[in-house]
């Protein structure tokens, strides 16, 4: 049904909707550190492959899988084993 891929991937900006369904903060602006090579950058800059059977986000530096998201009926599966950390910007007024 879908057109042949013109390019292999899109980018993490397209995760904003699927992740927005799960989290109350926008994770695409979070800085994630790759477990493979240590590169840190916004989730928006990951290389995103998908949509079927799930979304796979790879590191733009080393191609390691950083994040996988599968949306099934009634639940979502999120695999973050390729991310060492996610640094999520919060307003300074929220500091504790």
């Amino acid at each position, binding site marked *: 049904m879908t057109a042949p*891929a013109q390019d292999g*991937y899109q980018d993490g900006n397209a995760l904003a909707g699927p992740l927005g369904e799960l989290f109350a903060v926008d994770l*695409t602006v979070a800085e994630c550190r790759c477990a493979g090579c240590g590169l840190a950058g916004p989730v928006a*800059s990951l290389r995103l492959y998908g949509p079927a059977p799930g979304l796979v986000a790879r590191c733009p530096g080393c191609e390691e899988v950083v994040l996988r998201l599968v949306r099934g009926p009634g639940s979502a599966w999120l695999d973050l084993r390729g991310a060492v950390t996610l640094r999520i910007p919060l307003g300074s007024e929220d500091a504790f």
Partner: protein
Amino acid sequence: MRRLAWRVAELTAIREETPTARTLVLRVPGWPGHLAGQHVDVRLTAEDGYSTQRSYSLAGPSDGEHVELTVQRVPGGEVSPYLTEVMEVGDQVELRGPVGGWFVWEPAAKTPVLLVAGGAGVVPLMAMIRARRTAGSRAPFRLVYSLRDPGQAYYADELRHPDPGLDVTRVYTRTAPDGFARRPGRLTAADLAGSGRPPEYEPDCYVCGPTGFVEKAAELLVSLGHEPGRIRTERFGPTGG
């Protein structure tokens, strides 16, 4: 902030941009507003329950309950042929958003801006241009718009008479209009150096287009001395539209 939910949107107007692209004006009750550069997910559900969704950039700034999307028809796609050929004023579609806080322009920003568009990648950049106008911003803007031929130009009338402080440079890759000085060809460093904000201005750069275009344009910007941290990119991948 609550988690994202689907809303029902109704098509209120259509503007043809090119023979294969059109702008849809949708009314979304309860729309919370958005920033230029953000996008929405659109979901279609068939009678048998099969549903599929795609992301589309918002083409204009927030205007009450109305939002605009410009959709390019992708032959054989699952969503774009419906949006561009079948959907009529009064029809409804499911939509969720706004989403995406990375590829956005804040109207209060005073920094010079360099926008680099490849084809349909001009959509979120046009939202920034329109948001600049709406906000009365004086931030210097420059748009470098790469397109195959003049017939592919979105927002042609509006960009023919740019707002004060906005420069528009077109780069034709296949066919240029008669008398156009630059020969047709892919975007080069000279296009960006000659017409873009020089790196010394430290512009915020926004690059949007097909993946290959974005990679190349970002590479050229870095080679010209633009700070990688000031370059934000958005790629369409396997559009599958």
